[in-house]
């Protein structure tokens, strides 16, 4: 394959990820093209790009998911490649195929790889063939009770019995004790028969306190594949990741090596090109099983960038250009510890309801070891049509303890007003003993919800301060004459200052 330098990239996305991709393009001297819906004319990615084109109405289906309109815009603007970001069309094999047909490089895997890993059953078979462990279970229908008991003994307790034709929890039984096997099998079969008219069962290992651990991989067009170590993603709420960290406090060097090798084997089996993620589920005994592959950049990719020192978007683009990977597995090392917190516009006190609105004021954290990938600005109205993620806060520390201390400091500095956010909730996570000790699994938020949602104790002196400031605000509106100016050197005022004065009449 020959190398062909990319000169202009259309970013088929919005929000923080569109800007994150454009930043790497700009560093590489590559021009960027933004696309936007009617709801996004004032969005930051439109302002950051070299070029920007409207691709349709606010609903995603009519704009950010409109394949033909995006291909047409890429041609019109002369873009020679498309970066899909995450979400939207990033794992859409039709889109990858349409790019190929249109002679535009899709920065990501081939449609064939996407399809293979997108179908859970074909992916599972492929992984078994490649020697990657999957959650143990039967792959054929079980109709005889004897055979089912044999299977359960092979897999080992606890197991989950599921109806082959089932869904929605019907015909499902969790079996933890040997004495429950026979009765559970019978109950499941009867329920399956009643619900689906088919009493065939299926048995899968039940992972009790699972950890969600994923491995970042990079593969070039020549079959060279490396992993960039793991990300611990077990802090989840309703299967949405909330906090991620690397290294995982759980892994041993041996298990890490074994998982990394499996991740590379999985990517090779998928004939993979570009950046991808192999998700594993892990039990308390550090047994790990392939869960699925995400054939795109992950939201949480920055923690890997920080600890391994590689700009993943740049590598994606170089791979798409036909370059060979610039490093081998042995060149890659984890250095220090990184944590990401997702700042989401939602009301944690009202069942985490999304909370779109207009941003009135932002103070972002800064200093050593802080990265903030955001896309909102003061005066910006978050549209109701898209994801409620507004910012990702990433910290680095020499040790895990230092990273946690730094995250607490950064969250303390982070102020967003106008919409409700998860900042305070994330601060509580950093204070939770299970998190501080690194002894948590995917049940973490559920198990700690009382602590996480509790208020601090508020004394009356805080109330008094709130009243004093309100009094001062009221005063400043009615007693303009009483302005005491804190800055000593302003004698003459510019128009701007006069304008501002209306709002910042100092009391």
């Amino acid at each position, binding site marked *: 394959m020959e190398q062909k330098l990319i000169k202009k990239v259309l970013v088929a996305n919005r929000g923080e990820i569109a800007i994150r991709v454009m930043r790497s393009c700009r560093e590489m001297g590559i021009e960027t093209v933004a696309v936007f819906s009617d709801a996004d004319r004032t969005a930051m990615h439109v302002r950051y790009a070299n070029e920007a084109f409207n691709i349709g109405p606010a609903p995603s289906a009519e704009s950010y998911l409109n394949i033909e309109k995006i291909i047409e815009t890429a041609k019109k603007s002369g873009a020679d490649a498309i970066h899909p970001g995450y979400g939207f069309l990033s794992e859409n094999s039709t889109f990858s195929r349409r790019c190929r047909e249109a002679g535009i490089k899709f920065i990501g895997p081939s449609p064939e790889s996407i399809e293979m890993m997108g179908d859970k059953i074909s992916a599972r078979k492929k992984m078994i063939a490649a020697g990657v462990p999957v959650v143990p279970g039967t792959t054929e229908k079980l109709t005889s009770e004897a055979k089912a008991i044999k299977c359960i003994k092979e897999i080992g307790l606890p197991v989950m019995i599921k109806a082959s034709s089932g869904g929605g929890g019907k015909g499902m039984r969790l079996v933890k004790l040997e004495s429950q096997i026979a009765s559970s099998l019978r109950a499941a079969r009867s329920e399956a028969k009643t619900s689906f008219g088919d009493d065939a069962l299926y048995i899968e290992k039940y992972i009790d306190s699972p950890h969600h651990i994923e491995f970042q991989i990079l593969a070039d067009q020549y079959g060279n594949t490396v992993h960039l170590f793991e990300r611990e993603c077990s802090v989840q709420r309703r299967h949405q990741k909330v906090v991620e960290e690397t290294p995982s406090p759980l892994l041993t060097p041996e298990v890490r090596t074994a998982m990394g090798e499996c991740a590379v084997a999985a990517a090779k089996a998928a004939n993979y090109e570009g950046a991808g993620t192999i998700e594993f589920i892990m039990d308390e005994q550090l047994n790990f099983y392939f869960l699925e592959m995400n054939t795109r950049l992950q939201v949480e990719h920055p923690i890997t960038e920080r600890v391994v020192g590689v700009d993943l978007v740049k590598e994606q683009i170089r791979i798409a250009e036909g370059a060979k990977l610039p490093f081998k597995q042995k060149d890659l090392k984890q250095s220090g510890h990184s944590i990401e917190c997702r700042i989401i516009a939602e009301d944690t006190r009202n069942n985490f309801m999304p909370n779109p609105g207009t941003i009135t*004021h932002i103070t972002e954290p800064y200093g050593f070891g802080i990265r903030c990938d955001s896309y909102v600005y003061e005066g910006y109205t978050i549209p109701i049509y898209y994801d409620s993620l507004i910012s990702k806060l990433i910290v680095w520390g020499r040790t895990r303890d230092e990273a946690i201390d730094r995250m607490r400091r950064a969250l303390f500095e982070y102020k967003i007003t106008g919409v409700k956010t998860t900042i305070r909730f994330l601060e509580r996570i950093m204070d939770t003993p299970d998190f501080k000790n690194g002894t948590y699994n995917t049940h973490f938020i559920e198990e700690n919800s009382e602590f996480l949602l509790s208020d601090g104790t508020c004394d009356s002196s805080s109330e008094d301060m*709130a009243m004093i400031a309100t009094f*001062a605000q009221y005063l400043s509106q009615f007693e303009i004459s009483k302005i005491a100016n804190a800055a000593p050197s302003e004698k003459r005022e510019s128009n701007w200052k006069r304008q501002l004065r209306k709002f910042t009449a100092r009391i």
Partner: protein
Amino acid sequence: MELELKVNNRSEIVKEVKHEGNVLTLSVGDKLYEVDIVKVSNEEFSVLYKGKSFNIEVIETSEPKHYNVNTLYFKFDVEVIDNEARYRQNRKQSGPISNDNTIRSPMPGKVVKVYVKPGDRVEVGQPLIVLSAMKMESEFKAGNRGIVREVPVTEGETVDTNQLLVIIDEEEPAEIS
């Protein structure tokens, strides 16, 4: 200058005693405070009290004389009580402003589905309307049995926080058969 302020069901008279430069002496109820206070931006104050440094945001809300006040770790709703507010409060106590039979949107969003129209009879738990915001859909169900009086929104319409979605005229609960 004197003002009655209410926070967390606590009402206090806040009264200016002295104001020289940045230094404001005032009483909050029967406590006396001397603070060094300066407005650093439109809605933000820097307050020094006995050496402690506080940053306090005072943000106007859509309701007149109601402020959202953010200190470092706490959020307060502070209300300025004057004659007008007292009047409104008295009214509020005598008659309900919202009940289970009036459904309002808890956030800005888009109406994706309206299941009912005025005149429809609805049962407890029957879906009335579906709202979508930021990739999440919320279904609103009837809290009581009744007849739909009003549905002032249509499918596809965007709505703001607190906008009226459905009003139901309650009926006596039916006997359980």
